[in-house]
C-alpha cells in the first residue's frame, strides 16, 4: 500500500513529539468500547480499550466493505486473542496484529497507543503495515 506510506511520510521520522496524535480524554474510552479518531493526513483509526485495560488502534476502514466503521464493532476475544468484529459483515480481526481471522491474507494497519491517565494518544509516525 504505497499510498499509505507516502501519507504517513509527511511526518519526519525523527520527529517523535508531533507524531503523537491526541485521540480523546482517558475517561471517554471505556472498557470494551471503541471510538473513531481522525489522523493527520486524513486516515482514520479505530481505538479500543479491552476489559482488561489494553489499548489498541487499528485502521477504521473495514477492508471487506470499504466502510469506515470498525470503531463501531464489538470487542471480544477468540481463544484469548483480543478481537474486533466488524459491524457490517461481522468479519473478525485480531486487535494485536490487525490480522483477519477469516482470511489470513488480509491485515489491518495498527498503531501504538499511549494513555497517560488524562489523555489517550496514538503514535502515527508510521503504521505497522498490516499486509507485510
Amino acid at each position, binding site marked *: 500500500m504505497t499510498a499509505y506510506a507516502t501519507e504517513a511520510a509527511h511526518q519526519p521520522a525523527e520527529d517523535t513529539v508531533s507524531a503523537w496524535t491526541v485521540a480523546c480524554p482517558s475517561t471517554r474510552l471505556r472498557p470494551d468500547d471503541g471510538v473513531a*479518531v481522525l489522523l493527520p493526513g486524513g486516515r482514520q483509526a479505530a481505538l479500543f480499550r479491552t476489559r482488561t485495560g489494553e489499548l489498541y488502534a487499528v485502521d477504521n476502514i473495514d477492508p471487506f466493505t470499504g466502510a469506515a*466503521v470498525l470503531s463501531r464493532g464489538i470487542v471480544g476475544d477468540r481463544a484469548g486473542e483480543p478481537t474486533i468484529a466488524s459491524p457490517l459483515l461481522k468479519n473478525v480481526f485480531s486487535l494485536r496484529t490487525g490480522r483477519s481471522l477469516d482470511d489470513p491474507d488480509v491485515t489491518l494497519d495498527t498503531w501504538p497507543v499511549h494513555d497517560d491517565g488524562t489523555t489517550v494518544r496514538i503514535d502515527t509516525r508510521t503504521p505497522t503495515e498490516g499486509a507485510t
Partner: protein
Amino acid sequence: MEELVVIGNGMVGHRLVEALRDRDAAGHWHITVVGEEPRTAYDRVALSSYFDGATADDLSLGDLSGPAVDVHVNERAAAIDRATRTVTTDSGRTLPYDRLVLATGSSPFVPPVPGHDLPGCHVYRTIEDLDAITAAARAGARTGVVIGGGLLGLEAANALRLLGMDAHVVELAPHLMPAQIDEGAGSLLAGLVSDLGVHVHTGTASTAVEAGPDGRAARLLLADGSHLDTDLVVFSVGIRPRDELARAAGLAVGERGGITIDDTCTTSDAHVHAIGEAACHRGTVYGLIAPGNAMAEVLADRLVGGQATFTGADTSTKLKLLGVDVASFGDAHGRTADCLDVVVNDAATGRYAKLVLSDDATTLLGGILVGDATAYATLRPLVGSPLPGDPLALITPQGETLGADALPDSAQICSCNAVTKGTITQAICDGNHDVPALKACTRAGTSCGSCVPMLKNLLDKAGIVQSKALCEHFAHSRAELLEIVRATGITTFSALIEAHGTGAGCDICKPAVASILASLGNGHILEGEQATLQDTNDRHLANMQRNGTYSVVPRIPGGEITPDKLIVIGEVARDFGLYTKITGGQRIDLFGARLEQLPAIWTRLVEAGFESGHAYGKSLRTVKSCVGTTWCRYGVQDSVGLAIRLEERYRGLRSPHKLKSAVSGCARECAEARGKDFGIIATDHGWNLYVGGNGGFTPRHADLLASDLDEPTLIRYIDRFLMFYIRTADRLQRTAAWIEAMDGGLEHLREVVVEDSLGIAADLEAAMDRHVDSYADEWAAVLADPDKLARFQSFANAPDTPDPTIAFTTTRDQPVPAAPVGLGIPTLRTRENAR
C-alpha cells in the same frame, strides 16, 4: 451447444435436469423440458400430505428455468420424428434435439370392469386427481372405496378417511400389500389398518361399478355376489408405463410395457434415452422414486461424458400411513435359494418382524417390519452385510438397537437418493455438522425422510454433540442463560461472564446477553456497559447501511398516519438530504444519515410526536393492518384499531429475533396476517389468532392457535405466546423455527398458551405487564442524556468533521451511496497486491 429435449417434468425428469445443470459446468447442453401437467415438477411421493395441510407450493420441487433451461408446462409432446430428430407438441411447437429423454412416468392402471369410467370413479396420481377427490368430498360424498390394497391404495384410503369419508379397501390378493410383504405381516397390517377405521376386504375381486339414479358411481359389485354402496371409487391396482410416444416412434419396449433401456439408460435409438417409471430395465419397470433418481444421475453423468451405469436398484419401501408402520426391504419374500427366516409375530402388541438371512445365518438379505418400523433405518442399509449380532435381538422390542457403528461404509443410508454411509461420514468430516447441512450437501434425507434418524445417529457417532453452547464463551443455550439471569438477578454482562462463562465475550454472546437483559427489563439498552454489547444496529438505534451511514425508521403504528406527520417526515428528509422509501412494513424509511446527524434528526421527529420504530432491534417491528370496518365494505371488525393497540402494547419488547404482526379485517386477508409471527384475522364472532408465520429465507404460513376470541382473551394469549417465546427460544430463532423445534410442536404450544398446561400463564402475563408499564421511547431517552449522545460523534477528536469516505450520487432524484472517493479504500487489500 447441443440441444437436449426432456419429455415429462415429473420427479425423475426434474432430477435429471437438476443433476445435468450441476455437472455441465462447461455449458455444453441447452435443455428444453415439456411437461403435460399444469405446473412444474412436484413431490409425488409426498402427494398425500396434500390432504394433511401441504399446499401445491409446499410440494413443488422448484422451477429450474434459467439461461440454459427452458421449461414449458401445460404442453404435451404429441409425436417424435426420429429421422429428423424433432418432437412436436400439442401446441404445434416443433423442438429439434440432439438427444431426447423420455421421462414420461406412468399412469394408473384402470381395469376394464364395466362402469370404470362413470363419474365418481377416480385415480390417485396428480394434484388434479386429488383436487377432484376433494371436490367430491365437499359435494357430500360420505363413503369411498379404494380398489387395490397396495402401498398407494392404502395411502388413498387414508386420504379418504382424512376427508371425513367412511373408507373401504378391496384387495384381490389374500392379504394387503402383496408386492411387498408376506401373509403374516399382511394379516397383522389388516388389523392395524382396521383400527384406523378403514374397512379391509381381501381376497375379493371387483366385478363392476354400477351407477345410481344421478348417473354417478353408486355401488361396487364383488365376485362373491355381495356389493358395497359407495359415493366414490378410487382405482389403485397398479401402474402402466407411459410408453405410447415411444411405441409410435418405433422404439423397443418391454414385454409388459416400458421403454427398453440398457445400463446407460439408452433406448434402441442411440439418440433417445428413457428414465424413471417409463423405462424398462432388464425386464423390470420400477414403480419407486429411488431407481428413477439413480437413472437420472447415471444419464446426467453420461451426457457430460462420464461412464456411470445403472445396474438395478433397491426396492425397499416404507408406508407413510399415519400411525401405521410398515416397511419391507431387500429380499423380503425370501426368494434367495436356501435362505432362512427369523420371525417375531406378536399380535398382542401389534408387531410383526421378519428377517431373511443367508443359509449360514450370517448375512442379512431382507426383511419386513409391521407395527414398529424403527429398526428400518438401521436394518435396510445392512442388507448384504454380515449381521452385527443375534438376529432375534435385532427385531425384538427389548433387543439391542443398532447404531450406525454396525454399518460398513458402502451401506446405503438414504435409498431414495443412493447416499452411502461413507459419503455421509465424509460430509461430516468436511464440516457439515447438522442435519440441514448434511441434507444440503449429500441430498440424503431430502425425499421420504425415513433416513433422517440415521443422519442424526451418524452425527452422534462422529462425536458431534448438537451443542447448545452459545459460543466459546458460554456453554449454555440462550434459554438456559435467560433462566440463570432470572434466577440470580445478575444485571450485567461482566458479572454473568465472570460467574458463568470464560474469556472476554464476542459478537455472538454479547448481543444475545444484551437481548436477555433487555427482555427482562434492565433499563435503556445504551446504559453503561450495555451499550458495548449491542449488535451493529442496536448500538446506535438505527440500521447501519453498506457505506457506514444509517437509516431512520419512525414508528407508524398500524400504518395509520396523519397528513401533518407525513409532512414532518418529508421535511426532515428534505432538510437532511435523506433518501426516502415506503417499506414493506407499512411505514417510511429515511436512508443515508451520518452517525453525527442522528440526534438532530430524532430531535425533530420526537418533537413531532414520533417514537423509535425499532427497525434496528430484535424486537417488535410493525403490526400491519388493513382498513377493516373503518372503510372497507367487507370488514367485520376494526382491524386498524386493534393493530394500533397491539403495536403500542408490544413496542420495545426485546426478543430472540424480530417479531412481526398484522391484523386483517376479514378473511380476504389484505394485511397478510398469516405471513407473520403472530397474525390476527377478524371473524364474525371475534378474532382468529395465527402463530409462527414468516417471510424471509424460509417463508411459512402461520398456524391457527385459537378462534373467535374476544379482544381481552386474544391479548392474554398473545402475551403468553410472546413471553413463552422470549423465555425458551434460541438466539436468532424466529417463532416458526421455535415451534417446529418444540417437543410436541403446535399442539404443545396450544396447551401452554390456551390451557395453561404448565401453570405459568399468570407469570408470563405478569412479565408482559411489567414490560408494558416500563416502556419508554428509546430515542427520547438518548436525546435527554449527554452521556449517551457522546456515542453519536464521527470522530472522538473531531466531533464535527464528517467521515471523509462517505459520498453520495443521485439516482432517480434521490441521494444514494457512491463508491468511497479519495481516501476511501474500496478494494480488498491482500498480501498479493500489497507488495
